[in-house]
């Protein structure tokens, strides 16, 4: 990942964090003074480098981990805004990335009961809840959406 791609990635994340939603290629192009094609080609390289995840077709962001561009079962309230996370790990990651306390709302993957966890000073208020990671780390990127 060269310096230009790092700068593109950082602006993409900044716009996501500032607005609470995934930026369009047009918005990023405007912010960095590049063409939309430049942004799309850069995003493709970042996708290949696992720095973000694009939707099929390559024009829209699916994940800027830990943030999800699409609604998921893992929702986080932080900095007076709702965010979607890609998984339970990423839900805590939203608080981490924002350096904010937050509320994680999800459900037990088995029974469907709602689970709400307050994160204060990086600590969850209910340590009895368990996190299960099914896929080994060396296979996470084989199918990151499933992971």
């Amino acid at each position, binding site marked *: 990942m060269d310096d230009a791609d790092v700068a593109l990635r*950082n602006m993409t994340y900044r716009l996501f964090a500032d607005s609470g939603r995934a930026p369009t290629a047009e918005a990023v192009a405007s912010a960095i003074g590049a063409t939309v094609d430049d942004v799309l080609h850069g995003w493709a390289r970042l996708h290949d480098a696992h720095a973000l995840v694009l939707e099929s077709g390559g024009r829209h962001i699916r994940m800027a981990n830990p943030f999800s561009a699409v609604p998921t079962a893992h929702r986080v309230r932080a900095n007076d805004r709702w965010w979607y996370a890609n998984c339970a790990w*990423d839900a805590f*990651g939203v608080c981490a990335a924002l350096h904010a306390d937050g509320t994680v709302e999800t459900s037990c993957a088995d029974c469907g009961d709602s689970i709400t*966890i307050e994160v204060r000073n990086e600590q969850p208020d209910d340590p009895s809840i*368990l996190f*299960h990671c099914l896929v*080994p780390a060396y296979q996470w990127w084989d199918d990151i959406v499933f992971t």
Partner: protein
Amino acid sequence: MNLFRSEEHIDRWLAGRDPGVTISTTTLSELAHAWWGDRIAPAWTPHSREQNQAILTKLGLVGRFWQLA
């Protein structure tokens, strides 16, 4: 990567599949803050695989399951 009420719920959800690894949400939050804490930093640079592996190791997440490659 999901949350569960208890080990019993995990076992039922697995329905005979090989289990992965279960950790507490306390460890998960530590992991998340170490892994994602710099993601919107203006001067973010990519983590190397070795840096990420070190985060896992520091939290005791070791063994083949947690090897990134």
